[in-house]
């Protein structure tokens, strides 16, 4: 088994303007996602949603502190899941079920050191 980080990139302005119904729907989708991971032969190790990029502070070179995210993009990192999967195809099958209606996800293998 290998670990994969599924990074969720979405247009966060869409969340700012979403109705409470839509927000509730998305929350339910995330719950359904988490419940369905093992059916793919993978395991959910963790995951979190992040506060919007407006709350981000960047530090460069260990000293230069600036307001805002490290990279300014329309679709920003808004959360992640960490999964254990036997191969990339399984990780991708899981990634396809991650709710990300305002953007998409990126799947990255986690580096192992030995």
């Amino acid at each position, binding site marked *: 088994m290998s670990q994969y980080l599924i990074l969720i990139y979405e247009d966060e302005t869409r969340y700012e303007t979403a109705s409470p119904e839509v927000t509730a729907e998305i929350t339910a989708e995330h719950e359904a996602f988490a419940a369905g991971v093992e059916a793919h032969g993978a395991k959910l190790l963790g995951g979190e949603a992040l506060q919007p990029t407006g709350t981000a502070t960047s530090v460069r070179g260990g000293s230069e502190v600036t307001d805002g995210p490290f990279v300014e993009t329309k679709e920003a990192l808004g959360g992640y899941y960490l999964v254990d999967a036997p191969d*990339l195809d399984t990780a991708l099958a899981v990634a396809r079920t991650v709710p990300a209606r305002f953007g998409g996800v990126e799947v990255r*293998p986690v580096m192992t050191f030995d």
Partner: protein
Amino acid sequence: MSDPAGASAVAAAVADAHRREWAFVLAATVRVTRDLDVAEECVQEAFAAALTDWRRSGVPTRPGAWLTTAARRRALNVVRHRGVESRYLPLLVEEETLPGPGDALDDEGAPIPDDRLRLVVTCCHPALDRPAQVALTLRLLCGLSTAEVARAFLVSEPTMAARITRAKKKIAVARIPYRVPPAAELPERVDAVLSVVHLLFTTGHTTPVGDELVRRDLVERSVELCRMLRRLLPRDPAVAGLLALLLLTDARRETRTAPDGRLLLLEEQDRARWDRAAIAEGVSLVREALRARPPSRYALQAAIAAVHAESPRWEDTDWREVVALYDVLVRLWPSPVVALNRAVAVGFASGPAAGLAALDALSAEPQLAGYGYLPAARADLLRRLGRVAEAREAYTEALLLTQNAVERAFLEGRLRGTGG
């Protein structure tokens, strides 16, 4: 085993085995090593050993089996020496698969899962970008050296080496599985494989840059790859359609240029010299491929090629049938390039004015900006309408966008013909 053979006969036999059996031998060896690089080394060594061994013992009756045994024996040694401490083992995930619908039959008539199918879907995995898919396919399925792959795609050898290394690293690190995908995913994956083979063919059929019109090696490699897929997936209509398209298109190869190297249009080609065997095979494959609902884009393109191939003379071409096939193609597989070809066919079915109207509807297509065939097609329709000044302008524009010497010479000739 036959009698000991002469050096040139052995060299020819090894070259032939390299062309035919490379993918088979490599795929069978990857099973042992689970590591593409080690497998490649072992297979290369096996081919090198064949050059000397076959001189002594004669060319074996089944060169592929001999090479597979030799390569796998080397691979087992490497794996044993490397031992369990290797952190790269296993790099490739392999599961014991059950025979699938597309599997070939072994000597006893039992289905065997073919390693080559695993290799080709791995090379064309959607997690790899298209240039990487193409490079890996040429390297691992065709056995081309990095230098040869670099030459085929007009990039420097270090660039190609880096591209191949990066792709192999991704296969290993991201754990792209070495297996035939489940039936539900197979059509999508086969589609990616067919796109790569088609791209190889079109790159060879009309080389984008250079002095020759056709890159024979690329065309032949892609036809062989497609034949291999046909053996592995005998019931897949898209595979049948692509093979038909390649055969019907390539049947005209020898007549596309005059002895002096000049480009010859379809209407000028000597149809008696078209490859009749390839056409017959292509036509029978088209019939099979068109039975699928909906037909694949390759089947429709092949059907169009078949109309030309079966027409005894240019004047007899059934342009209405060609346009009708393009209509279906545009509907099922909308693409500005397909629409451009359709407009050209309309120009023959209903006259140059109708063709020009269809073509002008495409002038705003961003995908066709910088596409040399658009002004070239426009120039031809304008020339046929006697609008000489505009035709000259369009030929000049097409010339700016064409880097193939044979095509440039053709366009320059047309430009002179219109008094430019």
